[in-house]
């Protein structure tokens, strides 16, 4: 990357640093701002991070998966977007890969992620 491009991307460094560090396998709670007409409210969305894409770039996205009423739901969220209010790490998981697509097919015991103990 051209060093001059850093001038643009560095504007988001502060925002990136404001989020806790997390990786695939962690359960996070994302506070997403939702606009309804003129009103704005915050919706919480909790799930397992199954991938982080384009890390350390302005276009970084996270894919968060949760089971909602027995149906798997995945949301792809742009990490640095102003629509994301806050991210909390609920649980840290032990996983052996960076992309947890196997969770989509896994059922029952196989779909569990062990908690990482300090």
């Amino acid at each position, binding site marked *: 990357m051209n060093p*001059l491009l850093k001038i643009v991307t560095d*504007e988001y460094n502060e925002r990136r640093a404001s989020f806790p560090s997390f990786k695939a396998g962690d359960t996070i709670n994302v506070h997403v701002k939702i606009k309804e007409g003129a009103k704005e409210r915050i919706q919480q969305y909790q799930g397992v991070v199954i991938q982080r894409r384009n890390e350390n*770039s302005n276009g970084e996205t996270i894919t968060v998966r949760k089971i909602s009423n027995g149906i798997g739901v995945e949301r792809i969220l742009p990490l640095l977007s102003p629509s994301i209010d806050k991210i909390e790490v609920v649980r840290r998981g032990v996983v052996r890969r960076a992309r947890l697509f196997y969770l989509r097919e896994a059922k029952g015991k196989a779909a569990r992620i062990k908690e990482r103990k300090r």
Partner: protein
Amino acid sequence: MSGLIGKKIGMTSIYSDVDGKSVACTLLEVGPCVVTQVKTLEKDGYTAVQLGYGNAKEKNVTKPLLGHFKKAGTVAKHKLVEFKTFEKELSLGETLVGSDVFEIGDFIDAVGTSKGKGFQGVVKRHGFAGVGGQTHGQHNRGRHPGSIGACSFPARVFKGMKMGGRTGNQRVKVNNLRVLNIYPDKNLLLVSGSVPGANNSYIILQK
């Protein structure tokens, strides 16, 4: 039409202040450009301003051109471009930077030379759809152009028929790029969308 000469630095994305959406954007180095000639109606038959950008080695510039630069009181430049009907009054030897001409929120046009693609078929070059399928007895002409004309009348292929050939490496103009930000200390301009050409290639910006 005012304008400046610049260089493409590269692409990135930012989040819009208005709706929070991700906007793909291109960073351009714009200027400093030097006025190397002011053409007037009396002397040249039309009015225009010639700008120069990018320092060149003196040994790579012809002697007559070197004298042209000396007249303007500047070092040798790589790229010379003429702009007709410049909004500002400019004098010979004046230096222009991005913030002199462009403002945040302006819509500008960018002219560059697109990346060369080499010899390409009709699907890439002209957007043909190909033959359409792999079945119905089809096996080896999925991306072919199909028929290029009728038979004994006209008994020839019409001029300008779209066929394969050298693609890219052409002058391309992109209209209505919004200026998102200006960095005056580094002569940088951030515009929405993409700009033709490779990184470090020359771009002509028109307002």
